[in-house]
């Protein structure tokens, strides 16, 4: 059970709606913000900031193939004891 209850899109305050626009596009029709984003959704600006960082690193199409990035992700998560 996650530490904090996940937030629903309709619980995001109007002034923070801009921060969840990208997530709405990804999860069309979904009402609840779950998973790794759900863990950050109580601070939408932070979630959006992390998303931008992800786009510039893990999802950035640079010289590293996606397979290598995924392998790194799995291995780092394993050595960090991350169940998720």
């Amino acid at each position, binding site marked *: 059970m*996650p530490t904090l209850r996940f937030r629903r899109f309709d619980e995001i305050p109007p002034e923070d709606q801009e921060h969840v626009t990208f997530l709405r596009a990804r999860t069309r029709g979904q009402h609840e913000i779950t998973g790794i984003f759900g863990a950050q959704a109580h601070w939408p600006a932070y979630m959006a900031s992390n998303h931008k*960082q992800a786009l*510039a690193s893990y999802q950035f199409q640079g*010289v590293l193939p996606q397979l290598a990035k995924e*392998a*790194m*992700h799995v*291995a*780092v998560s394993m050595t960090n004891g991350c169940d998720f």
Partner: protein
Amino acid sequence: MLRLGVSEQGLTEIMAVAEQVASMAALAEGFRLRPDVPRPPDGPQTELVPPLDEVEPGQAAETLDAIRQWATEALGVQHVPALWRVLARHPRFLAATWAKDRLVFGRGELDQATKACTAMAVAMNLRSPYCVAYFNPWVRQAMGLDDNGMVELGACVMHYVSFNTIAHGMMLEPPFVDVLASDFRPGGRLANAPGPGAPPPSS
């Protein structure tokens, strides 16, 4: 990984790289080995257990010769890294560990470049100066990374550590358990689950 076409063995190969690097880092930092790639440090190479002298390899000679050959090709050094010469005090363990090392880091379902990136990421994550220095030339050579490429790799490691911390800190439950590679193939029960390589959400 599974969605990208990797099989169960491929995922196990990643686990093997992770645990091999973790075990190397434990020994290196536990014995306080000083980084010796690309060149040996001035003064003692370790504070706790001196490495075996390459001039008198004893029963470890054959294994050390194989390691030296690999180190020359992959790391660009002319010496056997101290980690292996420390293990050489137990020739049987050295031989078994080197054989495992070659299996784990050699080409399997995943190529060596992917494994080198993985090894470097784990070495960084475990904050092992010895292992970071050790894997640095190999990952640069295997994946063809310049300094900019290394920063791309480092940026990914930062992202993974950040998200691991979030997931762990908020006690997120794993989205997938007890899965097979076939679950993510077209027609599989998780074929449309979100994630890398997933089909775009339908409108």
